[in-house]
């Protein structure tokens, strides 16, 4: 079962990182007036 949690956890880590990068870029662009 550890492998299952590892795989799903790794996926959510990847997805979470990507979504965070998109949010940070969106906020930075809004601050810059774009």
């Amino acid at each position, binding site marked *: *079962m550890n*492998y*299952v949690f*590892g*795989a*799903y956890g*790794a*996926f959510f880590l*990847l*997805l979470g990182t*990507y*979504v965070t990068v*998109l949010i940070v*870029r*969106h906020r930075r*662009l809004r601050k*810059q*007036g*774009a």
Partner: protein
Amino acid sequence: MPASRSENPLTEKLETIWYWCGKLLTPIGAALLLAGLWLVAGAPIEALQGPPQKIFYLHVSLAWISFVLFGGVALSGIVYLVTRQRFWDQAGHGLASTGFVFLSGVLVTGPIWARPIWGTWWVWEPRLTTTFILWLLFAAYHLIRLARGNDGWTARACAVLGIFAFADVPVIHLSVLWWRSMHPFPVVMRKGDVGGGLDPAMVTPLLVMVAAMTCLGLGLSAIRTRLRKREDTLLGVFE
């Protein structure tokens, strides 16, 4: 021929639809992902592999959407090279970014599944190797964009690279049939027997996960495309 022509009404309409996809499909995808996880948790345990087989639902759905997104990159590249409308470069960039993240997911979940079943994290066999080559090609795609920004040369180079890289996708799909391989044969899209290789109780969780990844993949790609458009507007670089 100028690097960037003015957009036409059809492209503008498609652009609007694409941005709406971002707003609608992303929350739908997130909800479906939660439903998919619930169904995966309740899915039957496979007789031979045991619990690690539950990685199948995630691994297959990630592979599916990565290939769809890279198909979109190739299509955007072709349309960009023909029309030189910058939206197609922006869309290609958005699709490639999300596809790269999802393909990285395939390359992470695959070895975690392989370890308990094959007894090893990685084998240099045809499907794994061709998938890794695809990952490297899209790593190169993003390195070019990082190094050069979003000018016309980069747009043309990435359009060509995106089309070239997509040629690897059918090779990955057929690699298990063409060469001797450790990777299992397709169990879902078998010739003339769709879904025939899976227990019916495993089909629903797989379909929900595929639908979730499809919505998330397309939605996040559209959001990334919009961000890229705003970056271009701010920097004004596209010659």
